[in-house]
């Protein structure tokens, strides 16, 4: 794996203005605040967090589908290099063929009135990437086979397929323009476990064979642990911890990461922990708490945490932690 980043962001912010009252200050939702990541070429980059953490918005910002308010985002696949904030016109069109998205709900993502062949071919036709119908058909068949769909499937309509098959159709459509970068937003969350494993294996296989880079967004840490090389944990729009997957799961440092891990129900019926769990819910991004955004739920919050917002600190080995107390807490067991 080369170490050059495919996507690099520095201090990326996404803000949504709120329509406020007539008087008083205008409010904004800081959905993503000051996020800096390097997504290495050919990696499977996991982004995890609860609903409201900003993970989907971040993914959309990288696809130019969310209003970026500040910071930088650069895409560089070796052939093309784009500043994602300044990009437009022909460049943007080219970028759209290089960066694609897979959605969560395979029932909502496919038009019921198009055959599977037309669904998969649509990106090619819209972006005019092929010269003839024969070439389009060739590309569709090739990618369909890779996603384990057969010729007979191509003639049918989506309603005839199960959830797992539909998700394979969505994947085929995302791949048909031969992208380099895929944002997969909760791509397996709506699937049954037996099917989920199949789709995860398929994504890894495609990533390896086609040299793709994935931003894999999920709320499920065990899915992330199985698929990703590198993981970033988000909370209320901020990164709280980033590390190679192995490091993160073996030695989580941020109290939020620890709490997320301990909240996963264990398969061992005798491990029914009544241990300390996170209290409360994620605060509203309209009115975030001062200081560390996690202090309202953190069992280790001190006075400083309520006043000062921690920056991501380098802990060595590509492990970064945004917690004022992580060094002193390094030896405490998980918060759960």
């Amino acid at each position, binding site marked *: 794996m080369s170490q050059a980043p495919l996507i690099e962001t520095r201090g990326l912010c996404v803000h949504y203005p709120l329509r406020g009252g007539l008087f008083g200050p205008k409010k904004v939702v800081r959905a993503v605040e000051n996020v800096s990541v390097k997504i290495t070429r050919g990696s499977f980059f996991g982004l995890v967090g*609860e*609903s409201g953490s900003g993970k989907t918005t971040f993914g959309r910002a990288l696809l130019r589908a969310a209003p970026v308010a500040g910071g930088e985002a650069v895409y560089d696949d070796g052939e093309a290099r784009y500043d994602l904030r300044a990009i437009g016109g022909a460049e943007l069109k080219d970028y759209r063929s290089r960066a694609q998205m897979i959605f969560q709900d395979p029932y909502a993502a496919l038009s019921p009135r198009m055959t599977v062949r037309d669904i998969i071919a649509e990106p090619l036709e819209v972006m005019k990437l092929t010269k003839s119908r024969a070439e389009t058909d060739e590309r569709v068949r090739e990618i369909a086979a890779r996603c384990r769909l057969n010729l007979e499937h191509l003639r049918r309509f989506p309603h005839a397929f*199960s*959830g*797992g*098959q539909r998700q394979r159709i969505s994947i085929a459509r995302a791949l048909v323009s031969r992208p380099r970068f895929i944002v997969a937003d909760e791509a397996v969350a709506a699937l*049954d*476990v*037996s*099917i*989920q*494993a*199949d789709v*995860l*294996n398929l994504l890894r296989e495609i990533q390896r064979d086609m040299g793709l880079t994935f931003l894999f967004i999920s*709320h*499920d*840490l*065990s*899915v992330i*642990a*199985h698929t990703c090389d590198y993981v970033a944990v988000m909370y209320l729009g901020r990164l709280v911890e980033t590390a190679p*997957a*192995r490091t993160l*799961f073996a030695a989580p440092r941020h109290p939020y990461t620890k*709490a*997320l*891990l301990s*909240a*996963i*129900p*264990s*398969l*061992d*019926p*005798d491990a*029914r922990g*009544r241990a300390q*769990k*996170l*209290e409360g*819910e*994620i605060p509203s991004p309209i009115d975030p708490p001062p200081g560390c955004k996690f202090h309202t739920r953190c069992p280790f919050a001190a006075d400083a945490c309520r006043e000062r917002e921690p920056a991501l600190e380098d802990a060595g080995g590509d492990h970064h932690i945004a917690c004022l107390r992580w060094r002193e807490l390094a030896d405490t067991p998980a918060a*759960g």
Partner: protein
Amino acid sequence: MSRLLDVENLTVQFDTDEGRVTAVDDVSFSLDKGRVLGLVGESGSGKSVTAKSLMRLNAGNAVYGDKTAITLHLDDGPVDVMRLKSAKEMRIVRGGAISMIFQEPMASFAPALTVGGQMVEQLLIHNDMSRKRAREISIEMLDRVGIPDPVKRFNQYAFELSGGMRQRAMIAMALSTRPKLLIADEPTTALDVTIQAQVIDLMKDLVAEFHMAIIFITHDLGVIAQTADDIAVMYLGRLVETGPVRDVIRRPAHPYTRGLLAALPRLDDPGAALEPIPGDIPSPLERPGGCVFHTRCREIIGDVCRGEVPCFRLVEAGHLAACHLHEGECAS
């Protein structure tokens, strides 16, 4: 431990444009008072239809099998659920002795009524009490499930509550009539893990406090391992394995249960390959003959699986599996 519920030979079919579809096929199980039964299966397995049958809540095109019998053993004597006719008679299983909570709490609150208004309404339907008393009980319940400032929440609408709070309010509403059986249909699936952990703890506390039985429906084996005493695994409308939760999770006897466990990403072994169950769940319109699982089974023996419906056989004490891999006499 005394018996609360007996379900015998439950068969549910639906009349559709494409013909009669079997959703639940000859399912029998029982539940004792104060026990938690985890009903596990993937989408299309019939677990929700099974649960709704207990409250006779299936859609109008549902056809129940002739041999179906559901008996609820209450203090005043047994109730034959299949014999209930009028809406008034059915109140006993609809919010009276049985309550249900759902995956999507937003869908179980009427958007135009306040949370409190709905709680009071259902208390008045099932009990002879004053409006004032119903209001007191409702606020007490909201407080009990950990909702801060219950008086304020009582007067709010469901959309004003966060997801976790709504789920708590729904639990409060379901429990305020003091049901003997709570059916929880994927109650934590739409929640974040940290909130899921809170709701699971809350439900465990409430079971102990109210001495009710729970049927916990989920596709998440981890949630079952943390909550249930017993487990029943369903596939395509049939029960395939039942037993104490420890035994079934540690020594799964049916290839489908083994497949579910092998497909699960595990945090304790992130490097392990995930093994999907081959193929897709067949359409209910094309239910396979013989063992319903034979089209996807890795351990298929041969024609016996294709041609003969396996009976339940005892694998160890209290642990049954319906699979031809196991020999011996059929359990009754």
